[in-house]
Protein backbone atom coordinates (compact mmCIF):
# COMPACT_ATOMS: atom_id res chain seq x y z
CA UNK A 1 0.00 0.00 0.00
CA UNK A 2 1.13 3.49 -0.79
CA UNK A 3 1.82 5.49 2.27
CA UNK A 4 2.10 9.25 2.38
CA UNK A 5 3.07 10.65 5.73
CA UNK A 6 3.11 14.22 6.95
CA UNK A 7 5.35 15.37 9.76
CA UNK A 8 2.65 16.78 12.02
CA UNK A 9 -1.11 16.43 12.38
CA UNK A 10 -1.47 19.69 14.25
CA UNK A 11 0.86 22.67 14.32
CA UNK A 12 0.60 26.06 15.99
CA UNK A 13 2.97 28.82 14.92
CA UNK A 14 3.29 32.54 15.49
CA UNK A 15 2.98 35.22 12.84
CA UNK A 16 6.31 35.82 11.14
CA UNK A 17 7.80 32.41 11.93
CA UNK A 18 9.31 30.26 9.22
CA UNK A 19 7.34 27.03 8.98
CA UNK A 20 8.34 23.73 7.40
CA UNK A 21 5.79 21.11 6.51
CA UNK A 22 7.30 17.79 5.53
CA UNK A 23 5.81 15.05 3.37
CA UNK A 24 7.28 11.64 2.65
CA UNK A 25 5.98 8.94 0.30
CA UNK A 26 7.24 5.38 0.18
CA UNK A 27 6.22 4.22 -3.30
CA UNK A 28 8.83 5.82 -5.54
CA UNK A 29 6.25 8.20 -7.05
CA UNK A 30 7.51 10.82 -9.45
CA UNK A 31 4.86 13.44 -8.72
CA UNK A 32 4.16 15.18 -5.45
CA UNK A 33 1.69 17.92 -4.56
CA UNK A 34 0.83 20.38 -1.83
CA UNK A 35 -2.76 21.57 -1.39
CA UNK A 36 -4.50 23.67 1.17
CA UNK A 37 -8.10 23.09 2.12
CA UNK A 38 -10.38 25.79 3.49
CA UNK A 39 -14.12 25.74 4.20
CA UNK A 40 -16.07 26.98 1.21
CA UNK A 41 -12.98 27.04 -1.01
CA UNK A 42 -12.26 23.35 -1.39
CA UNK A 43 -8.77 22.10 -2.19
CA UNK A 44 -6.43 24.48 -3.91
CA UNK A 45 -3.08 23.51 -5.39
CA UNK A 46 -0.10 25.41 -4.00
CA UNK A 47 2.88 23.73 -5.70
CA UNK A 48 3.67 20.46 -7.35
CA UNK A 49 6.78 18.61 -8.44
CA UNK A 50 7.18 16.02 -11.16
CA UNK A 51 10.81 15.16 -10.44
CA UNK A 52 13.60 15.73 -7.96
CA UNK A 53 14.62 19.37 -7.80
CA UNK A 54 11.76 20.29 -10.13
CA UNK A 55 8.84 22.40 -9.00
CA UNK A 56 5.89 24.09 -10.59
CA UNK A 57 3.55 26.74 -9.21
CA UNK A 58 -0.01 25.75 -8.64
CA UNK A 59 -2.96 28.07 -8.32
CA UNK A 60 -2.01 29.84 -5.09
CA UNK A 61 1.80 29.83 -4.66
CA UNK A 62 2.11 33.28 -3.09
CA UNK A 63 3.68 33.16 0.37
CA UNK A 64 4.95 29.60 -0.09
CA UNK A 65 8.00 27.85 -1.43
CA UNK A 66 8.88 24.18 -1.80
CA UNK A 67 11.88 21.91 -1.81
CA UNK A 68 12.38 18.49 -3.28
CA UNK A 69 15.93 17.30 -2.74
CA UNK A 70 15.03 13.62 -2.67
CA UNK A 71 12.40 11.75 -4.63
CA UNK A 72 10.46 10.62 -1.60
CA UNK A 73 10.35 13.96 0.23
CA UNK A 74 8.53 17.18 -0.63
CA UNK A 75 8.65 20.09 1.77
CA UNK A 76 6.39 23.11 1.92
CA UNK A 77 7.89 26.25 3.41
CA UNK A 78 6.07 29.27 4.72
CA UNK A 79 8.79 31.90 4.73
CA UNK A 80 6.96 34.23 7.11
CA UNK A 81 3.74 32.74 8.39
CA UNK A 82 0.65 34.90 8.41
CA UNK A 83 -2.78 34.37 9.94
CA UNK A 84 -4.35 33.91 6.49
CA UNK A 85 -2.22 30.80 6.08
CA UNK A 86 -4.14 29.08 8.86
CA UNK A 87 -5.50 26.05 7.04
CA UNK A 88 -5.45 22.30 6.52
CA UNK A 89 -2.47 21.35 4.37
CA UNK A 90 -2.61 18.15 2.36
CA UNK A 91 0.26 16.45 0.60
CA UNK A 92 -0.27 13.94 -2.19
CA UNK A 93 1.80 11.83 -4.54
CA UNK A 94 1.18 10.02 -7.81
CA UNK A 95 2.93 7.95 -10.42
CA UNK A 96 4.40 9.53 -13.51
CA UNK A 97 5.89 10.54 -15.77
CA UNK A 98 3.65 12.20 -18.27
CA UNK A 99 2.32 15.50 -19.39
CA UNK A 100 -1.11 14.88 -17.95
CA UNK A 101 -0.69 14.46 -14.23
CA UNK A 102 -4.48 14.18 -14.09
CA UNK A 103 -4.09 10.67 -15.58
CA UNK A 104 -2.80 9.30 -12.29
CA UNK A 105 -4.65 8.77 -9.07
CA UNK A 106 -3.29 10.75 -6.18
CA UNK A 107 -2.51 9.31 -2.78
CA UNK A 108 -3.03 11.76 0.03
CA UNK A 109 -1.46 12.10 3.43
CA UNK A 110 -3.57 12.63 6.57
CA UNK A 111 -3.11 16.39 6.52
CA UNK A 112 -1.52 18.98 8.80
CA UNK A 113 -3.84 21.45 10.47
CA UNK A 114 -1.78 24.62 10.82
CA UNK A 115 -2.86 27.48 13.03
CA UNK A 116 -0.97 30.76 12.81
CA UNK A 117 -1.61 33.11 15.72
Amino acid at each position, binding site marked *: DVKVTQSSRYLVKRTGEKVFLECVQDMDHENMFWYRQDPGL*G*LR*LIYFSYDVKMKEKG*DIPEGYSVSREKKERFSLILESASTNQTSMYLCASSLGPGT*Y*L*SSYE*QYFGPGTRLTVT
Partner: protein
Amino acid sequence: SQQGEEDPQALSIQEGENATMNCSYKTSINNLQWYRQNSGRGLVHLILIRSNEREKHSGRLRVTLDTSKKSSSLLITASRAADTASYFCGKGNEKLTFGTGTRLTIIP
Protein backbone atom coordinates in the same frame (compact mmCIF):
# COMPACT_ATOMS: atom_id res chain seq x y z
CA SER B 1 -9.76 28.01 -14.61
CA GLN B 2 -11.42 24.65 -14.14
CA GLN B 3 -13.26 25.65 -10.97
CA GLY B 4 -16.49 23.80 -11.54
CA GLU B 5 -18.66 22.82 -8.66
CA GLU B 6 -20.02 19.74 -7.00
CA ASP B 7 -23.68 19.76 -6.15
CA PRO B 8 -25.49 19.48 -3.94
CA GLN B 9 -23.29 21.02 -1.27
CA ALA B 10 -24.87 18.73 1.30
CA LEU B 11 -27.02 15.63 1.09
CA SER B 12 -28.68 13.57 3.83
CA ILE B 13 -30.33 10.23 3.07
CA GLN B 14 -31.50 7.13 4.90
CA GLU B 15 -29.25 4.13 5.05
CA GLY B 16 -29.99 1.82 2.15
CA GLU B 17 -31.02 4.59 -0.24
CA ASN B 18 -28.98 5.65 -3.25
CA ALA B 19 -26.98 8.88 -3.24
CA THR B 20 -26.19 10.89 -6.35
CA MET B 21 -23.84 13.83 -6.52
CA ASN B 22 -22.76 15.86 -9.51
CA CYS B 23 -19.68 17.66 -10.72
CA SER B 24 -19.51 20.27 -13.46
CA TYR B 25 -16.55 21.84 -15.20
CA LYS B 26 -15.95 24.66 -17.62
CA THR B 27 -13.37 23.66 -20.22
CA SER B 28 -12.53 20.36 -21.89
CA ILE B 29 -10.71 17.85 -19.75
CA ASN B 30 -8.78 14.63 -20.27
CA ASN B 31 -9.56 13.05 -16.93
CA LEU B 32 -11.91 13.31 -14.00
CA GLN B 33 -11.44 11.63 -10.65
CA TRP B 34 -13.69 11.17 -7.63
CA TYR B 35 -12.34 11.14 -4.08
CA ARG B 36 -13.79 10.60 -0.62
CA GLN B 37 -12.68 12.44 2.51
CA ASN B 38 -13.62 11.37 5.99
CA SER B 39 -13.76 14.15 8.54
CA GLY B 40 -10.35 15.68 9.22
CA ARG B 41 -8.48 13.17 7.07
CA GLY B 42 -6.83 13.03 3.67
CA LEU B 43 -8.63 12.19 0.46
CA VAL B 44 -9.00 8.64 -0.79
CA HIS B 45 -9.22 7.91 -4.50
CA LEU B 46 -12.43 6.23 -5.71
CA ILE B 47 -12.63 6.23 -9.51
CA LEU B 48 -10.83 7.79 -12.45
CA ILE B 49 -12.77 8.27 -15.69
CA ARG B 50 -11.15 9.43 -18.91
CA SER B 51 -12.71 11.75 -21.45
CA ASN B 52 -13.31 8.90 -23.91
CA GLU B 53 -15.23 6.88 -21.31
CA ARG B 54 -18.88 7.31 -20.45
CA GLU B 55 -19.33 5.12 -17.40
CA LYS B 56 -17.26 3.25 -14.83
CA HIS B 57 -18.17 1.02 -11.93
CA SER B 58 -16.43 0.02 -8.75
CA GLY B 59 -18.43 -2.03 -6.29
CA ARG B 60 -21.40 0.11 -5.21
CA LEU B 61 -20.03 3.16 -7.03
CA ARG B 62 -21.01 4.21 -10.51
CA VAL B 63 -19.52 7.22 -12.25
CA THR B 64 -20.77 8.72 -15.49
CA LEU B 65 -19.21 11.39 -17.64
CA ASP B 66 -21.06 13.54 -20.16
CA THR B 67 -18.51 15.61 -22.04
CA SER B 68 -21.18 17.43 -24.05
CA LYS B 69 -22.67 18.77 -20.82
CA LYS B 70 -19.30 19.04 -19.10
CA SER B 71 -20.57 17.13 -16.11
CA SER B 72 -20.06 13.92 -14.17
CA SER B 73 -22.09 12.14 -11.56
CA LEU B 74 -21.23 9.74 -8.77
CA LEU B 75 -23.89 7.28 -7.69
CA ILE B 76 -23.52 5.33 -4.47
CA THR B 77 -26.04 2.51 -4.28
CA ALA B 78 -27.40 0.89 -1.12
CA SER B 79 -25.74 3.48 1.10
CA ARG B 80 -24.19 2.59 4.44
CA ALA B 81 -23.37 4.65 7.52
CA ALA B 82 -19.68 4.28 6.62
CA ASP B 83 -20.33 6.22 3.40
CA THR B 84 -20.79 9.37 5.47
CA ALA B 85 -18.01 11.63 4.17
CA SER B 86 -17.29 14.49 1.80
CA TYR B 87 -16.91 13.67 -1.87
CA PHE B 88 -14.79 15.66 -4.28
CA CYS B 89 -14.22 15.55 -7.99
CA GLY B 90 -10.85 16.50 -9.42
CA LYS B 91 -10.80 17.38 -13.09
CA GLY B 92 -8.32 18.68 -15.58
CA ASN B 93 -5.50 18.00 -17.95
CA GLU B 94 -2.00 18.79 -16.70
CA LYS B 95 -3.23 18.86 -13.12
CA LEU B 96 -6.40 18.33 -11.15
CA THR B 97 -8.65 21.11 -9.96
CA PHE B 98 -10.97 20.29 -7.10
CA GLY B 99 -14.28 21.85 -6.15
CA THR B 100 -15.75 22.41 -2.72
CA GLY B 101 -17.24 18.93 -2.42
CA THR B 102 -20.53 17.36 -1.43
CA ARG B 103 -21.05 16.56 2.24
CA LEU B 104 -22.96 13.24 2.39
CA THR B 105 -24.63 12.11 5.61
CA ILE B 106 -26.15 8.65 5.86
CA ILE B 107 -28.81 8.41 8.55
CA PRO B 108 -28.91 4.95 10.20
